[in-house]
């Protein structure tokens, strides 16, 4: 008898723990009240921020940190929930399926354009199904070769690539990944033709170190530790400025090649979200992004904090979408 009582307690505790894990999503939809939208105080309850990529990864960790800061400004918690899958499509569709009341946000990125053109979003759900709250970060990428490669700089590499069209193997982070698009943009600018090897950001590093590819196009973040250790040589940075962690590496622009593609991240909501709510969110997220604490944090992931307002973000997304569509068409991935 005693034993079974004890077991009941233990099992109840275990069950409670399990239930708690299931509770990390937002509470059920509140019953709709026909109140005037203009007079609704915002926020009245916790908000849900959809994170599109793996729990514990850079997108997740940075997104949570940003949300913590914004939640302090808004006075209600922002719960970050990881909804991965479909290169972001699962998360984007989740957010679009919720009410446009400002309680459902997404930590979006270049992926908003890529998943759409890849054909993984419904035809009417491209970037314009969302409206920007604020653009937050930018991230540069780099083209790198192994330290003992015969090419000392970009010029020699280009010369070799021109002499051997389609022979130079370049690892990227998967078909249609941001780095694949960057590699295609580099091809355009350099006037060469690579053989693209779709891996992922970590496999690219092992493939280059293991000598299976000639070069990689990857986020600068993944190249930095290898370049610093003298295992890899970065030939150029795709970005607006040099990177503190490898100050000797010139940007592509400095070397006379016009490649301009940055990985950006920001906060977006469904497009019908009312203006005053978007503005409130915008102020909170911009304050969080501009805090020293967030900047310090982002630096560890080699991210540049480059905040803009929601309106600017909308225009920026439109501009980027056009460019990404063109690049995807070039590599034969554009479906819609």
């Amino acid at each position, binding site marked *: 008898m005693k034993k079974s009582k004890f077991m009941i307690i233990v099992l109840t505790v275990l069950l409670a723990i*399990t239930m708690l894990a*299931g509770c990390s999503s937002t509470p059920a939809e509140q019953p709709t009240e026909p109140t005037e939208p203009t007079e609704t105080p915002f926020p009245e309850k916790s908000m849900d921020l959809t994170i599109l990529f793996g729990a514990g990864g850079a997108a997740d*960790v940075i997104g949570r940190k940003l949300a913590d800061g914004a939640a302090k400004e808004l006075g209600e918690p922002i719960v970050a929930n990881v909804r991965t899958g*479909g290169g972001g499509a699962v998360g984007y569709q989740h957010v679009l399926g919720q009410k446009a009341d400002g309680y459902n946000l997404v930590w979006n990125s270049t992926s908003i354009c890529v998943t759409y053109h890849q054909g*993984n979003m419904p035809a009417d759900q491209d970037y314009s199904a969302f409206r920007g709250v604020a653009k937050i970060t930018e991230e540069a990428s780099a083209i790198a070769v192994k330290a003992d490669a015969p090419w000392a700089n970009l010029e020699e590499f280009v010369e070799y690539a021109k002499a051997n069209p389609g022979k130079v193997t370049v690892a990227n982070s998967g078909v*249609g990944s941001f780095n694949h698009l960057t590699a295609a943009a580099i091809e355009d600018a350099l006037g060469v033709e690579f053989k693209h090897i779709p891996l992922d950001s970590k496999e690219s590093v092992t493939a280059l170190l293991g000598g299976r590819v000639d070069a990689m196009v990857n986020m600068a973040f993944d190249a930095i530790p290898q370049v610093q250790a003298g*295992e890899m040589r970065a030939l150029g940075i795709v970005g607006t400025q040099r990177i503190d962690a490898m100050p000797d590496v010139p940007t592509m622009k400095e070397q006379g090649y016009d490649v301009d593609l940055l990985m950006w991240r920001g906060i977006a909501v469904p497009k019908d979200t009312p203006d005053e709510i978007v503005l409130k969110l915008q102020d909170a997220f911009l304050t969080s992004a501009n805090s020293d604490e967030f900047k310090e944090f982002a630096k560890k992931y080699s991210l540049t904090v480059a905040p803009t307002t929601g309106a600017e973000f909308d225009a920026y997304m439109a501009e980027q979408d056009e460019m990404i569509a063109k690049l995807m068409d070039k590599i034969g991935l554009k479906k819609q």
Partner: protein
Amino acid sequence: MLEYFSQGLVIALQWENILFMFIGTILGLVFASIPGLTFSTALILMIPVTFGLDPVPAISVLLGVFAGGMSGGSISAILLGIPGTPSAAATVIDGYEMAKKGEAGRALGMAVYASVFGGIFSLLVLMLVAPQLAKVALKFGPAEIFALVIFGLSTIVSLSGTSLNKGLLAGMFGLLLTTVGLDPVMGLQRFTFGQSWLMIGIGIMPVMIGMFALPEIIETFQRAKNNKGVSKEPTDKQVVKASFPTLKEMKSTFFLMIKSSAIGTGLGAIPGTGGPIASFLAYDQAKRHNPKCGKGVIEGVGAPEAANNGVTGGAMIPLLTLGIPGDSATAIMLGAFLIHGLAPGPLLFQNYGDLVYAIFISILIIYIMVLVIQFFGIRLFVRVLDFPKVNLMIVILAMTVVGSFAINLNFGDVLIMFFAGLLGYLMKRYGFPITPLILALVLGYTIESNFRKALVYSDGSLDIFVQSPVSLVFLILALIMLLAPLIKPILEKRVKADKA
């Protein structure tokens, strides 16, 4: 090195560090032993907690979850026949058989001994030859990983039980399930029927929870109905004594433990492989060691547990030396390193030698904690068996639903869990083994993505798989495994004929 060691010792032995290791280990053990929660969930929950800690306690708490979790997965695998983590799927086979025979305590004891053995073995490898092993791991490209995983898949032969055909069928079905979702190279939708929740594919966790737990639950209810007296099930009332393996048993399994730990450490070090495949390969070794494997012997429990804990140290090798996580758990850990300004990679040992040694010493302390906590824990855990099984199963049913939802906050996973459970029940009923299906499901994605990536390298030529010596060796080994059951009877006949 000695200087680093002593500095590391000072950092590792700070009370704060010890406290967080303890918290992490307990958390890992608890999460891994509840069917439906994994230690990956615990790792993710702990990440925000580590923001405010010093670097070493921050990493220690995660290491505790990792090591505790790898070892804790065996608890529910043995007691309930439901693996707590995918890495413990192989432990179910013999562990649950032993529990049915009334030897749950012995099985748990062996699992703890093997876990700690594997963990400390991999720690030694990590400390002594990490840079060298990392260089070997770099040689594993898509072609090599494909061949290695195919070799892993070929252990289906030894998991199939009585009917090899049924085992292969189950395995093939598992592979088929992995084709649902976005394809690993082009990102195209396959078999998603326009449902966005299927884009993520058929998850391993919901299928595993469903297939192992639901048939048990259904059968328990059926038995209870037939017996009428719900709480009076004679088979479940057993005197369970917690016992560690005897010296004699330790001696007889010593080489198997070394082999299994080495398999775990080696596979842990190769990014993109990991726990489940290591534990199945080790289980296959156990079968060679003791042909009675499958009927409930300690070898069948020890080998997979030594291997999956071997993965803990192994997976740290590429993380610390190259900055590349070896599996999903170390990928989460990478975050903790970065947040504290320690970029793992070639320079970590040079710049933060003392911290690296502090981490090594912490791993050792964590495994000692695992040993002590589990030693006392076993007495507590086995009491689960004293509890009326029907009541227990009701709780587990609730856990399976919540657990499968909690993985991705996706209700689709709950549906998948129920379907998998129903299928699992039917498979069990008609004599199809479940483990081959789970193994195929775990490995399918890796097989396909590496196969196709290798073909991108070779412009579509299959030569790449035979040109690489590593890949060739593994493929031949896989072939031998598959053909052995066919050839063996013929050979044996010949030998008999010769003798006659």
